[in-house]
Structures are given as C-alpha cells and as structure tokens.
C-alpha cells in the first residue's frame, strides 16, 4: 500500500499520458507555443504553473460550495490572479533575481487555460486533497510536453540546451557545423512549435489507438 490510494494515484498519472492536458484535452496550447523556444523558459513556466495550479485548485475546492455559479468564472480568475500577484510581490521583496526571471510569465500563468480548465472541471466538484493531486498531475503532464517541445526547439533552432552549445559553435564552425550542418531558425518561431506538438500528438495516438476519435 503506497502513500496514495489507487484512485488518487490515477489523478497524478493519468494526465501524464492518456489524459494529457495539452495533447488530449488541448488546453494550454498558447503558452506551449509562446515560451518553448528554449528549454529553460519551459522549465521555469512548468514549475510556476505547478505551484499555481496546485494551490489554486485547493482554494477553489474549499470555496466550491459558496461560489455562485453565475459568476464562477470571474471568481476563478480573481483567485488565480490574486495568487500570482501575491507570489510576485513576495518574490520581488525577498528573491528579487528570481522574480526578474519569472516576471514575464506572470501574465501567461493568469491566462493559462489549463488553470481555468481544471478549476472548472475538477476543483468545483471535488474535495481539496483530490483537487490538489489533480492540479499537480495536470501541471506535470503540461510540464512533460513543454519540456519535450522546448528540448527539440532549442536543440534544432539554436543548437544549444539550457544555453550550453551542445552541437558546437555555428560561427566558428566547430562540432557538427564543420560538416555543413546549419541551425534551423524556423524552429524558433511559433509555427514550428505547433508542428512539433502535432508530431507528439501523432506519436501518442499511433501508440494508443483508443485515443483516436471516430
């Protein structure tokens, strides 16, 4: 018997593969396109979303019985915006450098549809502990895809990983560049993010035929 019951564990593992928020639920595409041009940005965004979604799901779940259904979307938006802004202010006061790295992500987190989607679909109908697990699971699934896309875009687009030149120097013509290899600048632009994502969806569905809709 592990830490989590089988049903709870599924909340974490399901979004990683067969119910992935990006490739199956098609949520959070916008940020997956916008910030995956390098791996570091993908990782930072993933951690930030994990934090906000985990916490936000708990808050919404605690409030689920008193939220008027007519204005629930606005309430959700306020909760997530408040959380993000408070975290941003505290970071600015105590970890200024970290907040500089994160500041550009703040807007992206607030408007991330995964967060709204999970509040709406899960936290409004489930208890805090299960909502927390669902938040962590979905953001992990999101992180997984973001990191794959970020990995390929940075590697093929800039020839680097986390800023380290893994393929050699394109200007000095060392490493693979000595054999005529060139970076593909198109990888850095949004259309290639969409195509990379499409390839991931294709691979996933050809491995698991049950995911294909008729």
């Amino acid at each position, binding site marked *: 018997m592990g830490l989590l019951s089988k049903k709870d564990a599924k909340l974490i593992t399901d979004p990683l593969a067969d119910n992935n928020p990006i490739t199956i639920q098609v949520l959070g595409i916008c940020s997956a396109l*916008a910030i995956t041009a390098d791996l570091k*940005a993908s990782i930072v965004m993933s951690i930030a979303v994990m934090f906000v979604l985990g916490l936000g799901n708990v808050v919404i779940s605690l409030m689920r019985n008193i939220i008027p259904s007519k204005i629930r979307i606005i309430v959700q938006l306020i909760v997530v915006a408040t959380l993000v802004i408070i975290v941003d202010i505290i970071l600015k006061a105590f970890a200024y450098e970290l907040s500089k790295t994160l500041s550009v992500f703040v*807007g992206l987190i607030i408007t991330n549809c995964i967060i709204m989607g999970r509040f709406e679909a899960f936290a409004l109908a489930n208890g805090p502990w299960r909502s927390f697990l669902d938040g962590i699971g979905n953001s992990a699934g999101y992180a997984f895809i973001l990191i794959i896309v970020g990995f390929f875009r940075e590697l093929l687009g800039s020839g680097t990983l986390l800023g380290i030149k893994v393929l050699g120097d394109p*200007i000095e013509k060392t490493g693979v560049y000595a054999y005529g290899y060139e970076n593909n600048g198109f990888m850095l632009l949004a259309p290639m993010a969409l195509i990379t994502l499409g390839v991931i969806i294709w691979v996933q569905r050809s491995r698991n035929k049950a995911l294909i809709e008729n």
Partner: protein
Amino acid sequence: MAINTDKNSYTVLFATAMVLIVGALLAFVSSNFKEQITENKRIEKQQNILYALGVNENDETSVEFVSKSIVGQEFKKYITKQYVITGTDAVEDPNAYLIDIKKEEAAAKNPSYKRRLPLFVGEKDGETFYIVPVRGKGLWDAVWGYVAIDNQLVVQGVFFDHAGETPGLGSNIKERFFMDDFKGEHFLDGDTFKGITAAKGNADPKNNDKTDCEVDAIAGATITGDGVSAMLKKDLQLYLPYLKTLKQ
C-alpha cells in the same frame, strides 16, 4: 447549512465581499513590502550601471552582477561622478542615478520642460567611461539599459533589460551573446550620428566590422531588436551635444 447560491442577492453580496477581501489583501501585501521592493530596485540600478562599466562577476557565458552586499561600496569606488545634463551644461549630483527616466521622458513632452539627463562617470583601470541610461519600447513592454562610452565615443559595454519580452526570443537581449556584441561598436560614422542597429543579413555574424554601427540581430526577435535600435538612436542623440564636448 445549505445556501441558495443562485439567488441574485447572494451573487451580488458574494461579489462585493470577494472584491473587498481581495482588494484589502493585495493592498496590504503591496504596501507591506513596498520598502524592500524600492530598495531592491535601487540596488539593481547600481548593479546594472556597474555591469555596463564592466564591473561584474561574469564567468564564460553567464550574466552575474556584483553581489548585493558589496554593490554600495563598489558603486562609490567606480562611479566617481554623476551629472545631470541639460543641453551642454552638466551639474554634479550624487543622486543622479535615482532620476526616473520614464517620468522625465513623459514630462519632456511639454516643450517648456527642460529634461534632466543623468550621466554617470566611471573610472576603471585608469580609464574614464561615460555611462548613459537608455529607455525604449520592445514588442510587449518597456526595454531599457545602460551604455558605457569612452572619450572617443566608442561603446565599451552595455547592459539591457526588459519588462516582458518573449522568453527565449526577445528576452535574449539581456544575454551575453547579444550584449557583448556591442563592445567596441561605433555609433558615429565620422561625425554623423547613426546610432547602433541590430541588423539582419548584414553578412557579418561575428561582428568583425565595428565601424558599421551594426550588430547582429537575434533570430525570431525582430521587433525587440528594432526596439533596441530605436531606443539607442533616440536616447544617445539626447546626450550627443554634451558627449561631443568630451571628444578632443
């Protein structure tokens, strides 16, 4: 206790309460930490100015400022004078670095206002550098920076920062590969002012030609690059009358 959450009166009540609570919470957090944040911003300014001067703790590829604990003394040690410039007159002011460029720029829209331009004089390894703050627009939000110039009016170091450029693309203006490119670059062609352009397709990716007033642009960040070029052109020009008096 079952509440009828569908009633209009409840909805209005809930919304009012929520706004009050959230508003109070945010106001409290914000005012509570205001002092630390202002202080952090002041320290950052000093770090940025020193960075442009070449006083930093960079290793091969990273951007490292002098640490927070010593930045105050380092700033006093390297920045020997601070001026406020209006036209070709320069008045010394030890707190010139606290001038808010954004507010000055806004106030200067009024033609009767004489814009105060801060300039920092740094001494490093026996040489004198003049550090000019610049500020402009990127793709999403503000971009700004500091440009260190020697007495031959050649750029010897820059620091750029931004409020919200796209991570991995426009945000690369604060990476070493972009900022280091400006070292040794001219912004005057003979006596004509040209600024420095982040140029595409000038067939000079290594930036060997330092007198062409062009550096290599970042792929996928056209508008941010154009913003940086425009910013340098606009703000260096303001200092030009004074800077020209320095060049013997």
